[in-house]
């Protein structure tokens, strides 16, 4: 597991919203639902659309705007095709007003 790195300020991610951050080469989406943060790869495993751009959040799921693939933001599991590969998910925390994500090396 990688080290936690600060990606942005806590107020950059509103409730019910997903925002993209770059962590090294990784494009990471951070979403907030009912106060809890979730971090996962921002790149849909189907056709590489950015999930944070127009993806629909419902509960702890996010559905890609391009072709409807739906993932669990908690586990990365595919909940609706056409994607068949799960999303990578990452540990995320809020510390002193900052959002920190741990991306494996």
């Amino acid at each position, binding site marked *: 597991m990688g080290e936690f790195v600060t990606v942005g300020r806590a107020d950059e991610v509103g409730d019910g919203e997903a925002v993209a951050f770059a962590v090294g080469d990784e494009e990471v989406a951070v979403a907030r639902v009912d106060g809890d943060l979730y971090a996962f790869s921002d790149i849909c495993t189907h*056709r590489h659309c950015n999930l944070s751009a127009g993806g*629909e959040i419902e509960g702890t799921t996010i559905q890609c*705007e*391009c072709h*409807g693939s739906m993932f669990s933001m908690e586990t990365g599991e595919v909940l609706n*095709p*056409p994607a068949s590969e799960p999303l990578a998910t990452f540990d995320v925390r809020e510390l002193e007003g900052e959002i920190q994500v741990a991306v494996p090396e």
Partner: protein
Amino acid sequence: MTDQRTIVVVGASLAGATAAATLREEGFDGRLVVIGAEELAPYERPGLSKGYLRGEESLDDLFVRTPDWWKEHDVELRTGIRAESLDPHSRTVALADRESITFDAALIATGSRNRRIDAPGADLDGVLDLRTVADCDKIKEAAAGGGPAVLIGMGFIGAEVAASLRALGVDVTVVEPFEAPMQRALGADAGAAVAAIHADHGVRMRFADSLDRFEGDGRLERVVTKLGDELDAAFSVVGVGVQPNVEIWPGEPAPDGGIPVGPTLETEVPRVFAAGDVASHEHPLFGRMRVEHFDNAIKMGEAAARNMLGAGAVFDDPHWFWSDQYDMQIQMVGRAPEDGQTVLRGSHEDRSFCTFSLDSDGVLRAATSVAWPRDVRRAIKLVRAGVRPDPAALADPDVDLRTLLPKDA
């Protein structure tokens, strides 16, 4: 304990491959055979008119599962061989090499093939069409040689190929018998907005005209239309629709040319199912219909797999599909009724809108959007639930469609 049943999937199509993958994912560990006429492992076709054609996606991006997945999951993937017949009495599928496989349950997912155009010169070099990776590679090669290209037909395929060829810098003219692109799916008003977007990108369109003949000396040189236009052409892509591959079906076809299946996708032959383009399905919301789209192939493949294992579930997906052209996405859900009311959200002039179709009882039956994100996806649940939304709410872009869904739906 290993399941003693054998399941045969005829057609290594998106529907067939999805069904096979679903069978394994649902825990079926009996013998599973997938028979495909094409040599390649099962792949998705939408990219062939878009990312793959433009060189942005590779073949690896298109595979339904990685080619290794099938072996890893003990699926007998038999590609490059055609299934010749299915005998409902002996419950066998016969292959072109005369091998015969006895099945307990079978799925027919043979997809469709392109309609051929019956015109003089259709056999000239440079007259192409698009269904397979090999077809697409020929178009890419022709496009690399420059244009001009003349496309015959501006349905989904013609419109998407036009957009991709423009992105590659090829000069494009399209000949289309209707008054607008994708008119049967979109209607005239939305079709006109899509035509305007194509015109902005430099596509020339000849509507209300059709192909008379291809001309050239061995190789295509020009396309001549019924109205007498002579269009220089280095190559042509014909996209005039498809016909379902139902030859293996031993029974009568449905009036729409498909294989008749009931609400659970089962045919009149017990435990023989059909899915995807070939399935003429008794839909609980819309009545009998046959759908030639990507999402339907996946959803029917999954549902047929579960029902082959005995789930007995009615397939009631409201049918969602999309088309990507330039940076615009068109989306559709449902089936618009022949009479009833339409409600517009957004505007045709801005070329960004969503049209809702309600039946004579005010039930939302379909929605179509052009360059208008989110609302068609949100309408899926409304169509499935059969709600009667307030037309004023549908017309108001500030109303979140999710709020129109009853809490108990």
